[in-house]
């Protein structure tokens, strides 16, 4: 039972990271209708900034705060310099343009920080496990990730649902032309939204940096999972992204933890381990396909967000 709870926590923690990445992606996709493959690069940049600033300041917290601000600035600059030219074009152009950016950022990072990758070290008090339930130990830092992401999700909810900027964001997601026609500075709004998305991606990158690592191309694999989350959740919906991220995180972790063992009961050792591993890596996509069959627009489609 404790083992089940522990794997459950692992799933939630993975879901939280995916949410941070997917929230920015879904905002940009939903409001600006932009397919941004370079989102993973901002995730990488956030992690590199955090590792560098933490090194300079000798403080994990200060380093991450500075990195967050720096990623926000990079994101807004990127929008003004490059992304702006892609609006209103075909999605294929977005893919091509942002894929180019992805290669550009990988090479830029290699030039600045070298190919070896970096490490963001945790303060020693976060390097242990705590007892959450009698007999159940869980890494402190992973609990920190869950708590901080929940706080970010709550802030994001307040921002989108309770502020004027949030109202514009929601309006922009529903009907872009009308927002522009009403005299809203849509250019500035887009820059802000892109910057916010970038900061969220950077935040995801720097939060995971102490667990995984800081290296070139680190955002590319997880970006696929983030797109799955956005698709399941319904494009443009932050609430959808949250629910879908938890779902994907849990399905992936539970699949890795239990599917091979489950198959062992019915199949031979060799067949079970081979099939189990393939099945558990496929599971997320199977779930996505099933959800899209029932709800082609995702869990929280545009009309109901």
């Amino acid at each position, binding site marked *: 039972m404790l083992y089940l709870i522990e794997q459950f926590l692992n799933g939630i923690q993975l879901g939280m990271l995916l949410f941070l990445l997917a929230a920015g992606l879904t905002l940009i996709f939903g409001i600006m209708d932009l397919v941004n493959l370079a989102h993973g690069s901002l995730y990488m940049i956030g992690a590199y900034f955090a590792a560098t600033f933490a090194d300079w300041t000798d403080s994990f917290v200060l380093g991450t705060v500075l990195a967050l601000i720096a990623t926000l600035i990079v994101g807004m600059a990127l929008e003004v310099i490059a992304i702006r030219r892609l609006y209103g074009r075909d999605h294929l152009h977005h893919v091509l343009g942002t894929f180019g950016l992805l290669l550009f950022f990988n090479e830029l990072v290699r030039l600045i920080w070298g190919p070896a990758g970096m*490490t963001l070290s945790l303060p020693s008090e976060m390097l242990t496990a705590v007892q959450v339930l009698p007999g159940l130990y869980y890494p402190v830092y992973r609990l920190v990730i869950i708590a901080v992401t929940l706080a970010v999700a709550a802030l994001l909810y307040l921002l989108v649902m309770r502020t004027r900027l949030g109202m514009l964001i929601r309006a922009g997601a529903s009907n872009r032309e009308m927002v522009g026609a009403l005299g809203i500075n849509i250019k500035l709004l887009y820059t802000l939204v892109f910057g916010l998305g970038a900061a969220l991606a950077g935040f995801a990158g720097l939060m995971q940096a102490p*667990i995984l*690592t800081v290296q070139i*191309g680190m955002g590319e694999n997880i970006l696929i999972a983030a797109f799955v989350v956005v698709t399941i959740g319904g494009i443009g919906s932050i609430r959808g992204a949250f629910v879908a991220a938890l779902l994907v995180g849990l399905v992936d972790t539970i699949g890795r*933890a239990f599917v091979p063992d489950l198959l062992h009961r019915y199949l031979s050792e060799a067949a079970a*381990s081979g099939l189990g*591993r393939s099945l558990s890596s496929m599971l997320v996509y199977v779930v996505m396909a099933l959800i899209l069959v029932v709800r082609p627009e995702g869990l929280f489609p545009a009309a109901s967000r």
Partner: protein
Amino acid sequence: MTNRSHALSRMPQIMGAVSVAALALAGGPALAQNKTVKIGFISTFTGPPAAIGNDMKNSFELGLDHHGRKLGGLPVEVIYEDDQTKPEVGVQKTQKLIESDHVDFVVGYIWSNVLLASLKPLVDSKTMTVVTNAGASQLAGELCSPYVFSTSWNNDQTPAAVGLYMNQKGVKTAFLIGPNYAAGKDMLAGVQSTFKGQIVGQELTRWPDQLDFSAELSKARETKPDAIFAFYPGGAGVQFVTQYAQSGLKGQIPLYTAFTVDDLSLPRLKDLAIGIPGAQEWVADLPNDANKKFVADYKAKYHASPSFYGAQTYDAVGLIDSAVTAVKGNLADKEGMRKEMEKADFKSVRGAFKYGNNHIPIQNFYLQDAVKNADGSYSLHTVATIVKDDQDKFHDKCPMK
């Protein structure tokens, strides 16, 4: 009569042809002196494993510097190719080196799966090959080839040495974990070949994209083993060891490793690597002269410590030099080069070793440990010799004698 006069009139022509042939024969070695040794070098130069590829390239270049940029008296031309960690790219680049660059030697290969994909064109074209890392068990066994040599090991040897050490430490139950590709499977089989205790759990994780091992570490904790054995090469090693420390398992269940803590990951792992033993056929502090020179000059030139990947690649330079010297620069004499290379007659940085019938080194494996130095840096040190003159278990399957 007419016939004879005809023959006489052709005499000058025949003489001319003979003298040209004679000149050509005499000039053979002289012409060879103008040739170069063309070497194709395959490693990974993009993505996170580029750190490994660069270390190999640096060591190879340093080796060439130490030989005055000449091997067996011939100037050297190296063509570096990037396999992008992908078998399908590796085989393409290998074919390109053989078919369009016509290289005399192919050197490199980090990944067992990339090597296995590339082996057929190498063997079919009888290209002299020096594998400097990948140790797929098939290469030591049924796929061995007269023209393919290794300066590394067979995959199962290093984990087998770790298994022996685990026996020495009285480990009774173990949980094994590694990535799900050719080398990962070989490594876990390697530990099991020598470890006498019970295996309570075994995990092969998605490779190369799975970097979060929380579910697997939870499983390890659940099975309550005496020890965990892990194989995670390159950047994945940093991730695995970091997450192991964060999970709080470090004080509870000791970790034994193969190819997980190395000189490339150590500067990133720092204190986290201390107290995690591993096995290796080469350690930077091995006390032979060739190694001292290699390590000192590498540090001076590149301001970093070389890894075992680099050491094995540096050895390839010495091996090729011995071969080209033995055939006096006649690179067409592959039999001659093969016979010389089988002697392993060069100054290896791991110390002297012999080749088995399958061209895999028969060598020592050492226990290594991470140490924090007085100046705050970290380095790996030899603690003990686990096995002497170890030969892989697949050499019987190799048809070569």
